[in-house]
């Protein structure tokens, strides 16, 4: 841990009592306690998520009471007792019970909120040993979590309140050989998360590092001129350099899809800055100097230019082009056509139309982007939070103008990703500065900076028409959508391509036309966010189908069951899967609960006089795993070590979803070895083969399959070495000795004296899996994905019709996951997906330039997420490992439309502008009341 050596003049030592130890903190007494704990005392278990008391990640105990360390000045707590996550271990047995309960229930996913949750829960349980669920929610209400949906956290705290909790066999580890798939194996990387020792992007600081601050455009669009930069550096002690586009040695153009790459590291002075938050320069210097520098004094003059902020402005005739080579400000489009949609709609017995619009959604990972870079000879190393180390490597190499092999990307633990950490954030600035200055350089985005300049979910404007026969058979869907993709391409092309493939929903739609466009505007780039546009699309399509069912007088669930895709019905791209299409089973699993809940809601509304109206809604979902019609291989290497342990090199970044655990379980069963024989070697471009990016719900499916194949191959090699040809031979992994049992014989294989291969292992197996797809033709026909995941959610809600507020009472989520490799982790994905879907439906909208913080931008708190009942359907796809399909994005898609359909059921209003905030719902209710009245007077 490096800190600035204070000069005698600045030195101001304060005595603190932290975790029962007397310590001294140097620096201004007005600095935040969180900063002193992390940067000076090295207690990085205390996370910083917002510096504003909005997220609670930095919660510590001050004389036993929870407080946000970001809101306390060091000078205020001299000689008072401060307890951080690191200090709680001295409080057994309570904290021990809490940690174990968090692990057992899967209450920690990415782990960024976990210290704050554990500290808050400790304070609660020390005061109240038998809390109610409401007590727990009140105690945790100040800590935001973006991954779990909170329910497993609540369960864990309630469980920990009881001494001697149950211990499951999975927790005590050592599962049977070849039997870990399907088990609730406790997250293998969980211990560091509940101890606060996990290393995230901001948690390691190289010795004598410099710090970097980016100067960003304050306008949606502006021209700018730098003042005198050299004198600026000279005039500011501690500032070492200013970097601009002129300092970029390679090609100043990056982007996640190489053929669309268009984003410069820094906007060009000869050109213009294209969005509020775009980088124009970076100041590098001593950390203290950079931290205290007021960016307003940077020598630059701005000329604000008229900006295109909406789709309408951007596509208006004569609108200025944001990129000169993209006519009409259209980045690209997507199209899937099948049958004759116009004729089918003309002949349909019932046709419904709808227009729907969604807003920007912010990922709001609890961990803001952070990392450092250092130059090692002619190589650059970047340690940062990322979902896509190999793609980062390629872009950094391009920017620096060096070969990819000279770039090493070391992902830290990721405190929430959801798609936004697929794009570069801090990496190009750090790499450039460390490369040029030959010094380590570090930076941590503030929450404001993170919200201002990292990608968002695309706002969508969707128009659709659907037709069905009078007996309820869907015959046609016509779907068009424009997505506001912002100033640079990011994942806009992926959204434009993926949505037309999915816009039918998981139903047989014989006549189909889906056309999309990604439109450039002068707004922060919209990129990847859990579902690549499909969640927005499902809001339109699933509400439209509800209207169609209602028009036909058919129960909305039965309508979906009637039209559900089957194993032998073609999708809208003409793909016939032949197996593993579990959507009908998902809907049918809801039927009993649906009928009961609908009846209950109707009865409640009939007998209740007050403003509360209950409603129940349903929505279905399908989602292709992996890249759309593009290769996306994963390579996994396993090695047998001299000591009899297995080294698993897998480059899939675990962003909290659990790939470290799931991939190991799969590999273990391929090898038929217990999970605890494995040593995990996490993603690092220099030591793990490429497992692609953590996105598109592909890691369990693609990397899992490669891990299975590699495990199988290692098993064959071991048996070959032991001269055993027996398929069912049992290998026991002892210390430096393997024992092979076949039939009633057994023989031992001593590893100690065997030669090592080039990887340093006795035996190495490496396997690559790339899911088979085919390109789509000009009408979008082909095989875009080898495997789809399916699911259906049912939401029960209560609407206060006078205030327009919605409370979600319960969600039942049925998902066809092919094979549930780890049910606890799958439930975690589902519950977290439900929470994000709920946020998208009811509260989340980012307004560029307004509310770049977590108190204006709201994500669900612990009190907003209802109990979620997960129903896991296993309709295997033989291509996936043990039949498994993805779940990460699938989980978020059906929640919002199910809630919106429930609002319609409760109130009769159809929400077309999302999120359905209280004011929008109330406005829609008032409009429907007045139109009813008008209708009545007309007779």
């Amino acid at each position, binding site marked *: 841990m490096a800190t600035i050596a204070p000069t*005698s003049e*600045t*030195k*101001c030592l*304060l005595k603190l009592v932290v975790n029962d130890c007397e310590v001294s903190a140097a620096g*201004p*007494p*007005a600095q*935040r306690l969180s900063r002193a704990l992390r940067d000076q005392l090295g207690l990085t278990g205390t996370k910083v998520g917002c*510096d504003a*008391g*909005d997220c*609670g990640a930095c*919660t510590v105990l*001050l004389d036993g*009471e*929870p*407080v*946000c360390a970001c*809101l*306390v*000045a060091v*000078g*205020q707590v001299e000689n008072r007792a401060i307890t951080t996550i690191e200090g709680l271990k001295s409080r057994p047995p309570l904290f021990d019970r809490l940690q174990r309960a968090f692990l057992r229930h899967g209450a920690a996913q990415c782990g960024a909120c976990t210290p704050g949750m554990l500290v*808050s829960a400790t304070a609660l349980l020390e005061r109240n040993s038998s809390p109610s669920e409401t007590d727990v*929610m009140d*105690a945790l*209400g*100040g800590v935001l979590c973006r991954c779990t949906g909170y329910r497993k956290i609540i369960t864990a705290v309630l469980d920990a309140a009881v001494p001697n909790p149950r211990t499951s066999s999975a927790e005590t580890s050592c599962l049977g050989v070849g039997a870990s798939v399907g088990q609730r194996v406790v997250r293998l990387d969980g211990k560091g998360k509940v101890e606060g020792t996990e290393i995230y992007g901001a948690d390691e600081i190289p010795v004598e590092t410099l710090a970097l601050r980016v100067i960003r455009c304050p306008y949606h669009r502006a021209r700018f001129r730098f003042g005198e930069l050299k004198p600026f550096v000279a005039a*500011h002690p*501690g500032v070492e350099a200013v970097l601009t586009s002129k300092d970029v040695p390679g090609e100043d153009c990056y982007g996640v899809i190489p053929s669309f790459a268009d984003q410069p590291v820094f906007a060009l002075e000869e050109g213009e800055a294209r969005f509020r938050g775009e980088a124009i320069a970076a100041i590098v210097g*001593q950390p*203290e*100097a950079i*931290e*205290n*520098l*007021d960016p307003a004094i940077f020598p630059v003059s701005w000329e604000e230019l008229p900006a295109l902020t909406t789709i309408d402005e951007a596509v208006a005739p004569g609108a200025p082009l944001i990129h000169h080579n993209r006519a009409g400000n259209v980045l690209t489009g997507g199209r899937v056509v099948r049958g004759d949609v116009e004729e089918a709609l003309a002949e349909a017995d019932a046709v419904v139309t709808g227009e729907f619009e969604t807003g920007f959604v912010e990922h709001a990972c609890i961990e803001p982007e952070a990392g450092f870079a250092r130059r090692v000879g002619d190589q650059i190393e970047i340690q940062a939070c990322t979902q896509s180390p190999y793609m980062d490597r390629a872009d950094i190499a391009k920017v620096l103008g060096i070969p990819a092999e000279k770039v090493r990307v070391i992902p830290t633990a990721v405190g929430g990703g959801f798609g936004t950490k697929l794009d570069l954030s801090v990496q190009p600035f750090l790499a450039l500065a460390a490369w040029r200055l030959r010094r380590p350089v570090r930076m941590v985005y*503030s*929450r404001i900076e993170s919200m201002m300049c990292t990608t968002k979910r695309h706002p969508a404007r969707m128009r659709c028409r659907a037709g069905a026969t009078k007996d309820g058979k869907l015959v046609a869907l016509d779907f068009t959508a424009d997505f506001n993709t912002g100033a640079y391409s990011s994942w806009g092309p992926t959204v434009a391509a993926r949505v037309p493939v999915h816009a039918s929903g998981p139903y047989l739609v014989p006549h189909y036309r889906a056309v999309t466009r990604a439109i450039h505007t002068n707004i922060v780039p919209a990129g990847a966010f859990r579902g690549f546009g499909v969640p927005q699309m499902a809001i339109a399509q699933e509400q439209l189908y509800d209207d169609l069912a209602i028009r036909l007088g058919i129960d909305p669930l039965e309508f979906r069951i009637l039209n559900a895709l089957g194993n032998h019905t073609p999708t809208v791209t003409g793909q016939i899967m032949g197996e593993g299409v579990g959507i009908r089973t998902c809907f049918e699993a809801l039927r009993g609960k649906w009928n009961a809940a609908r009846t209950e809601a109707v009865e409640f509304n009939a007998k209740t006089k007050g403003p509360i109206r209950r409603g129940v809604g349903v929505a279905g979902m399908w989602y292709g795993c992996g890249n759309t019609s593009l290769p996306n291989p994963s390579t996994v290497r396993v090695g047998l070590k001299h000591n009899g342990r297995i080294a698993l090199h897998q480059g899939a970044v675990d962003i909290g979803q659990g790939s470290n655990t799931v991939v190991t379980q799969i590999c273990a069963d391929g090898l038929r070895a217990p999970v605890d024989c494995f040593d995990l070697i996490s993603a690092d471009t220099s030591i793990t083969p490429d497992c692609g990016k953590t996105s598109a719900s592909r890691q369990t499916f693609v990397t899992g399959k490669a891990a299975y194949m590699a495990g199988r191959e290692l098993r064959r090699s071991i048996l070959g070495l032991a001269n055993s040809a027996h398929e069912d031979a049992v290998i026991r992994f002892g210390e430096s000795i393997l024992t092979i049992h076949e039939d009633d014989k057994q023989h031992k294989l001593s590893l100690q004296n065997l030669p090592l291969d080039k990887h340093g292992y006795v035996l190495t197996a490496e396997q690559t899996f790339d899911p088979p797809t085919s390109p789509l033709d000009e009408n979008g026909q082909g095989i875009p994905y080898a495997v789809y995941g399916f699911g259906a959610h049912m939401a029960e809600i209560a609407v206060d019709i006078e*205030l*327009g507020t919605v409370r979600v009472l319960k969600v039942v989520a049925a998902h066809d996951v092919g094979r549930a490799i780890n049910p606890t982790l799958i439930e975690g994905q589902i519950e977290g997906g439900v929470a994000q879907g709920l946020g998208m439906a*009811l*509260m989340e*909208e980012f*307004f560029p330039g307004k509310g770049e*913080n977590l*108190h*204006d931008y*709201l994500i*669900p*708190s*612990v*009190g*907003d997420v209802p109990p979620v009942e997960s129903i896991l359907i296993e309709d295997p796809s033989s291509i996936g490992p043990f039949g498994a399909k993805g779940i990460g994005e699938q989980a978020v898609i059906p929640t919002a439309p199910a809630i919106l359909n429930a609002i319609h059921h409760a109130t009769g209003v159809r929400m077309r502008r999302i999120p359905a905030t*209280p*004011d929008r719902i*109330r*406005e829609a209710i*008032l409009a429907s009341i007045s139109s009813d009245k008008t209708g009545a007077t007309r007779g």
Partner: protein
Amino acid sequence: MYLRPTLYKPCRLYQNYAQPQFAALFYVFRICGQGVFLYFRPETLDEAVHVLAHSGGQILAGGTDFFPALGDRSVTGSVVDISGLRELRGVVTEPQYVKIGGLTTWTEVINTPLPQCFDGLKAAAREIGSVQIQNRATVAGNLCNASPAADSVPPLLTLDAEIELASQAGTRRLPLGDFIVGNRKTVRQPGEILSQVLVPRTVENAASVFLKLGARRYLVISIAMVAAVIQKDSTDRVADARVSVGSCSAVARRLPTLEQMLIGVPAGPGLGSLVTTDHLHNLSPIGDVRATAAYRRDAALRLVQRALDECVGSS
């Protein structure tokens, strides 16, 4: 000269402030590129106002508004940390007033046994941020920050609260309604500290409620909020009514026409239904990221109706 400096190099700057009668802690620190600043940590109100009179630093108490206001900048300038003034903490009941020390935290307000008319204030206290915030945020801070959405202002207005400002010149007292004069604007002078809130003991056994409307359950800034106090007479009619609405104007407002109208009305079921849009005429809601102005006006009406019904136990 009696000083307990934790600072090392006495610097000329602080000699000026070092008065023999004070035992205040001083720290001097340099912020790279910004200059030399002072951090004062007085232990008595006298010290604090003295320091303020001479240095004019930024006041730091609970820190829950101080730090967020910095955005991603670090603290610059001198700071007067008044969180060590024990005399400004706690609630005392005197014959005329319940006096709440300015530095009393919201958790302390919640945990202090108080008469029924404080139920609304306590309900508001539970809605201020989160437990973490309530453990640090002070009563004075919520008032001095003067956010239109400050949760404590509507209930304190319905309690006819007064505030006391202390400065080197002495103290002055004024009604809360005269203290907050605009969006984040008060009449507090730079040398003044809000030392206490005084609630006259006139309606102690009156029913009081606080209703907050936000777009999520916890940690939420109000879209609108309503506080109400209803005192019944011996015939179960309204003897005294106080209703205020927050987040619907630059400063939370009492509703005097409504309060007048309610006097003498039976304090039972249907009380809320007497409220009409006209009673809310002095509100001036704006539209922002949380809600439209029209919605605020509409929701405020519903909340006022519900608050009154709740006060008379008919909801």
